């Protein structure tokens, strides 16, 4: 076994361990000087990225990989935790890495003006990364809960980073209230699983699940809580509060954590309950109606999420809060794809005799669109938050009513805003268009009205950002912005990296779908592979 093979073998724990140990080393490194601290955080994140790349190459080539903490023999009754990494986990880890790396580059200048607390800032960012990556890589539902809790606590502390602002403290308080209550329900659902099946491993649970009444309760608890953590309407109100008050460099890392909750919801529906919702076996023909029903619940919530997100964004005057509502709407598009897949399942019959259970092709395309939109949403919304941060850095303003003519002073930032604007509104040839097109067309085949609503909402998104562009960037020069200058290079590099990825993803969507999205979607569709990797491999 050569060095690369050894590194690949141990990469799942290292991806979590490197940022975790770095987080605890940051206060010590901070004592040297701030540049060393910033560089240390960047280097450690790059190392994490290297391990993610190694693991991704292995998983995409050879299928899911497991890593066991504890006894490998399942017959030995000891506590063990298992990481199981499939294409979807790796896909999410890549998304998280991009966001965090850009956040650290951006923070270099953006947080420079902060006099105190930056050692804690970097520690918390790295802890949040640890928890997010842990949620994405773990194959154990209780372990998922532990990482979810770490994510809640570190996110709360980061939202309240500007502790001198009452609004930031209030947003952090609301976040921790919502998160703690949600976490309690998740723990309760895990208790239901453990009481019934004496198991916490996701693959084992998936294999033994009976879809009893208690399992239905656990399903509802988990999906609703994770839906709330992802920002599903009407449980989304914490999201614009938190996104709007946290430093923008923090917000983009929290976006990654939010997407990890969404990943959790997808994993539960398609993997733990996959034998019922994904199955095309005629022995579970009775579950087709259940699958459709769950699909329609998700579709209704998704459409509400899109509409309320967009309509509320239109009346916001605080730039960051406005983007927060747009982020809510974008989450709706992601859930819509998942809902369409579940609702599209049907039974083929000859006379009254069922002959096959089928997912039509558009169901799988909807899921691909949904997964592609995860990464697109993260990139587009993050770029817009970074632009909002750049404006705040240069002007100390967040209110659109107080802004005017910034394009004259901040040319690069304006270009980045335009790229973000076009991408998030789904204007061709940006990345948002490709994923939304997949969602629109597949949704149209299920129900044209829903698809039309989704398209109209996307047009309204464009209107929202045209308002921002007009009021903040266009218009006359105003005297109070006389001395405003373009932001420092590290902030421009951060925004530039995301803008480049957006353009590449937009121009070559087929490549991203082929190499990243399709394997991730197949990992969700084919839960048998996830189960057999653990039960046949340990």
């Amino acid at each position: 076994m050569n060095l690369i093979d050894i590194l690949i073998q141990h990469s799942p724990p290292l991806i979590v361990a490197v940022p975790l140990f770095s987080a605890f080393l940051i206060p010590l490194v901070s004592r040297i000087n701030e540049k060393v601290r910033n560089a240390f955080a960047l280097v450690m994140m790059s190392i994490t990225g290297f391990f993610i790349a190694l693991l991704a190459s292995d998983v995409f080539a050879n299928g899911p990989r497991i890593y066991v903490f504890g006894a490998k023999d399942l017959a030995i009754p000891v506590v063990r935790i298992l990481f199981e990494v499939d294409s979807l986990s790796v896909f999410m880890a890549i998304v998280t890495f991009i966001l965090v790396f850009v956040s650290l580059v951006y923070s270099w200048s953006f947080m420079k003006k902060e006099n105190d607390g930056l050692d804690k800032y970097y520690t918390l960012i790295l802890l949040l990364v640890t928890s997010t990556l842990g949620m994405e890589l773990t194959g154990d539902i209780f372990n998922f809960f532990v990482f979810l809790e770490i994510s809640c606590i570190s996110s709360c502390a980061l939202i309240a980073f500007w502790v001198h602002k009452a609004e930031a403290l209030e947003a952090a308080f609301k976040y921790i209230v919502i998160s703690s209550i949600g976490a309690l329900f998740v723990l309760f659902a895990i208790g239901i699983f453990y009481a019934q099946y004496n198991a916490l491993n996701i693959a084992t649970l998936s294999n033994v699940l009976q879809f009893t009444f208690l399992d239905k309760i656990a399903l509802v608890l988990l999906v609703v809580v994770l839906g709330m953590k992802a920002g599903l309407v009407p449980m989304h109100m914490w999201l614009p509060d938190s996104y709007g008050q946290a430093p923008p460099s923090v917000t983009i890392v929290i976006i990654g954590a939010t997407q990890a909750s969404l990943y959790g919801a997808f994993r539960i529906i398609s993997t733990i309950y996959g034998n019922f919702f994904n199955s095309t076996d005629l022995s579970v023909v009775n579950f087709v109606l259940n699958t459709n029903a769950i699909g329609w619940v998700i579709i209704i919530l998704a459409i509400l999420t899109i509409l309320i997100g967009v309509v509320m964004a239109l009346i916001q005057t605080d730039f960051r809060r406005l983007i927060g509502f747009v982020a809510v709407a974008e989450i709706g598009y992601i859930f819509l794809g998942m809902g369409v897949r579940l609702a599209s399942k049907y039974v083929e019959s000859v006379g009254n005799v069922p002959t096959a259970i089928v997912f039509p092709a558009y169901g799988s395309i909807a899921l691909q669109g949904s997964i592609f939109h995860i990464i697109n949403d993260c990139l587009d919304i993050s770029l817009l938050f970074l632009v909002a941060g750049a404006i705040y850095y240069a002007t100390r303003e967040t209110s659109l009513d107080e802004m005017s003519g910034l394009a004259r002073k901040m040319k690069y930032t304006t270009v980045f805003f335009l790229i973000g604007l076009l991408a998030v509104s789904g204007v061709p040839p940006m990345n948002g268009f490709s994923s939304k097109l997949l969602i629109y067309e597949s949704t149209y085949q299920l129900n044209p009205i829903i698809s039309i609503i989704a398209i109209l909402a996307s047009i309204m998104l464009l209107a929202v950002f045209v308002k921002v562009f007009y009021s903040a960037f266009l218009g006359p020069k105003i005297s109070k912005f006389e001395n405003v200058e373009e932001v420092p290079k590290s902030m421009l590099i951060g925004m530039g990296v995301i803008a480049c990825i957006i353009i590449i993803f937009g121009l070559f969507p087929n490549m991203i779908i082929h190499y990243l999205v399709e394997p991730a979607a197949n990992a969700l569709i084919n839960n048998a592979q996830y189960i057999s990797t653990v039960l046949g491999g340990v």
Partner: protein
Amino acid sequence: MLETLLETLKTGSGFWNPVVWAVAIVIIFLLVYILRGFGKKEYKKETGQTQAFLSGNPEYEKESMHVKGSNVYWGFTETLKSVYAVLKRMHNGNASDYVLWFLIILAVVFIFVGLI
């Protein structure tokens, strides 16, 4: 790799090739630019031609004429005043209400899933 890179994205019922689209847009812009070149060239900068005509009224200071963010789409928001009144009541910033909405959705989905 290159083939995949430039391949047309099949969406099940349609297709999308951004590279072809981008090339088409560049050609269209070039054509528009050439057509623009045939236009009149009598436009004189810094004369009466560049001044705004406000029904004969004098033009205010540029700074005071900027339409603020909250005034853009005033007509739209005014028409949907009743909808916005309900939505603003929903978004009251009260953490207890946030939890209440969570419990309501939990109860509704419980009933729905319990029934099927």
